[in-house]
């Protein structure tokens, strides 16, 4: 090849790099390791990460069963090693699957349109707020304190320099639901949207009807956030919301120390041109057959540049595929049954502890336990990872922990936890 190019050495090909820009020593990274040394390396690291523990952690990342089939499918090279489906004629597999994904997300959330995925639930929140700002021409955002604390941090980071003031809505200390009076007080004509999560960070199911009425009366949009997708197997979907964002991690995606996950954003048909990210649309091919392709890309950065709806480019396609497979496998009945098992397990656990809030909950709830750290330490001795001590995010709840039970949580573990909590 060198001959064909007309150089004597491969080094010649970088001969033109200016000396002051060149790197003149070897990287301090050790020489290549063999496949099996690499496997051993990660096995050893993994062995130091709570293998064999029961866990009651939720708080946005949930332990659910992962059907084997999902992994079989995402490992097909045709899905794993293809790029964003720019060339429709040889990407119909991915395009068709994304179209199915968009449809299932709509069915699940009660919305009319959904995109191909967002980075995760947290980054989808500011994207929803920015979308609301574009739609309403207003700039203020109200967000419930019961929205996942890290999601709110991300919202703050994104909005800081976009002239998008953000105010927080308190919660009712009896029920853990957002404080409607506080909403009424802070809602004004500059308010673009109100962001609420349900089940909220405390696991409490929010009442949306009144809130929606209030918000819409003021001409603002209601943004609904979920972190536990399984809840939508049982919970009434947020028809009254204008934008729905959430995290699909619960659908076949392993916790993986926090990522990669898949965020979703869904909305009403009329707002479709303001939605960020990739969209797959139905069309016809030269023979008049149904086909799919990326569409409305005039919203996107590669066409619109600084005027784009977002700078998002690569999203979470393969993870969204896992979610699609999950929804396909469980389907109509299965997802409901899955949600029902989660509901039942969490309520069994709650029945043995003191709940901090009195309100309906799905598979998470806040328990009053005195000293959370002490209880968790006690549990670790029994190879149980306890709940999330809430003081970290809510000083007023320093004596509480957030506990989660899913279909994977065994009765014995719950009984052990209850006993330790006595």
């Amino acid at each position, binding site marked *: 090849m060198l001959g064909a190019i007309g150089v004597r050495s491969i080094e010649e090909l970088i001969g033109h790099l200016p000396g002051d820009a060149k790197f003149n020593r070897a990287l*301090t990274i050790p020489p*290549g390791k063999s496949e099996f040394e690499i496997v051993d390396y990660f096995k050893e690291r993994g062995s130091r990460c709570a293998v064999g523990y029961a866990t009651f952690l939720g708080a946005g990342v949930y332990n659910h069963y992962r059907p084997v089939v999902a992994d079989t499918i995402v490992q097909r090279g045709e899905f794993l090693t293809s790029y964003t489906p720019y060339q429709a004629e040889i990407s119909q597999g991915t395009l068709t699957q994304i179209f199915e994904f968009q449809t299932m997300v709509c069915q699940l959330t009660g919305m009319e349109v959904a995109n191909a995925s967002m980075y995760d639930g947290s980054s989808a929140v500011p994207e929803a707020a920015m979308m609301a700002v574009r739609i309403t021409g207003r700039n203020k955002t109200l967000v419930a304190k019961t929205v996942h604390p890290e999601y709110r941090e991300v919202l703050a980071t994104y909005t800081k320099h976009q002239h998008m003031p953000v105010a927080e809505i308190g919660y009712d200390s009896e029920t853990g639901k957002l404080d409607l009076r506080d909403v009424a007080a802070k809602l004004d004509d500059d308010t673009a949207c109100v962001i609420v999560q349900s089940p909220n960070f405390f696991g409490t199911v929010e009442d949306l009807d009144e809130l929606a009425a209030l918000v819409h009366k003021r001409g603002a949009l209601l943004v609904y956030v979920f972190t536990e997708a399984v809840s939508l197997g049982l919970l009434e979907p947020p028809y009254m919301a204008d934008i729905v964002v959430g995290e699909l991690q619960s659908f076949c995606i*392993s*916790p993986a120390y926090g*990522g*990669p996950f898949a965020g979703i954003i869904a909305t009403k048909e009329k707002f479709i041109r303001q939605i960020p990210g990739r969209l797959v649309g139905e069309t016809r091919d030269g023979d008049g057959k149904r086909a799919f392709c990326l569409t409305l890309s005039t919203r996107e950065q590669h066409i619109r540049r600084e005027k784009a709806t977002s700078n998002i480019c690569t*999203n979470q396609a393969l993870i969204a595929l896992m979610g699609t497979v999950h929804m396909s496998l469980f389907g109509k009945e299965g997802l*409901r049954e899955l949600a*029902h098992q989660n509901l039942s397990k969490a309520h069994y656990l709650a029945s043995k502890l003191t709940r901090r809030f009195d309100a309906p909950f799905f598979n998470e709830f806040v328990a009053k336990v005195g000293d959370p750290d002490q209880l*968790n330490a006690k549990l670790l001795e029994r190879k149980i990872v306890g709940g999330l001590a809430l003081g970290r995010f809510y000083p007023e709840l320093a004596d509480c922990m957030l506990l989660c039970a899913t279909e994977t949580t065994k009765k014995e573990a719950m009984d052990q936890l209850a006993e330790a909590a006595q």
Partner: protein
Amino acid sequence: MIRKVTSHPTQNESLLFEMSSPGKKGYQLPELDVPAVDPKKALGAKNVRAEIDGFPEVSEVEVIRHFTRLSTWNYAIDLGLYPLGSCTMKYNPRVNELVARTEGLAWAHPYQPESLAQGAMEVIATLECALAEITGMDGVTLQPAAGAHGEMTGILMVRAALEKQGNPRKKVLCPDSAHGTNPATAHMVGYEVVNIKSNDLGMVDVASLAAAVDGDTAALMVTNPNTVGVFEEHIVQVAKILHDKGAMVYMDGANMNALVGVARPGDFGVDVMHLNLHKTFSTPHGGGGPGSGAVAFRSHLEPFAPTPRLRHKDGTYSWDYDRPDSIGRVRAYYGNFGVLVRALAYIMAHGGPGLRNATLDAILNANYIRKGLEAYYDLPYKSPCMHEVVFSDDRQSAKGVKTGDIAKRLIDYGFHPYTVSFPLIVHGALMIEPTETESKQEIDLFIDAMQSIAREIDENPDVVLKAPHSTRTRRVDEVTAARKPVVRWRPAVPAARAAD
């Protein structure tokens, strides 16, 4: 002559919704070991939904077949050369998929006690160090989920640093060759975007740059090598121009596959940059993600990096949330950890020398293609190219054939097309990046195909204009798709009433 592919039947398949039959499911749960709760009682009747209209009802074998059949309609690296310029479609080693599934790592919860997450934290720390060494930077954050996300993180850090000095400034400069995410990012961080035109070597025009930089300039977002595959030869001088005015240099590292082991942004004046681990470090694209947009920075920007930062003290790792000057979080938790595991595995497998060789091979392959095609396609910039080469369709468009048509015809020849119509500074661009993992045989077949298409355009342009001819789906009508967008399936009329 088409040597690479032969047609063969592939299974048709309808949408899952169209093949559902009531009551079917593909999955079984264990029996409940606690009393079953009545949802209406527990949640309140009005909070319990009716069944999900139109949701799939299929068996496990139908699911396997559905997605297996769909997969056969895709092209992929595992099938052949995938020369999308700027995307670095290199081979994705399978061992990376295995290690990413290591039980303790795949099932680590982001909130589990740090004492029970040391292994995962060590993986993150080790990758941060390796990337700092590779980029010549002082620190790295792995929180961003993709390149664009990394750009936002980096520009936010620039802004925070300037703000701390008392003035965030107003403008971010982007060469006209920049990727769309650059201006879009600058805008999201509240900056006005100023375009800088490139000179006829495809490089930033130093004079016009110097003219544009002033006290309102926050930063330059430069891609190096840039999107025409050319190394910015005056990069050191460029950086100096900005630094002299108290501005900073952000580097879009999407093309880092041309530099690893050969040149380090930290050595040529870059203050902050992102890396696309899903490009340079071989993590699979998966049809559009997940990725990871690691951001590397000089020490003066460290205080502003996202929260939390990983610390290492007396043999234990911990997360530091006490970061008064931090830009805050750009996402929940610590980043796309599963992607980080793969990237580290890639770096370990290559090692320092191997990484440098990969870079050289990538450059070799690009230059070999350039040589093989320069007699057939117009080369707008004669500067030496690095890991990718950009042609224009000048000669072919004279015959009415555009880069998009040539791309479609390549499909008939058994290849995924190159990147079409980017960068915008090249009219009718053909942006070709083979990567280092392609064999000479595969590349020769590609060159042969591109030459053959050039001849077809002379002899019979129609065959190219109507391409592809061999695919199960003929050229799709993107215009109609956009005119009245249908982005979801809906049941046929009868069921329609019921539709949500």
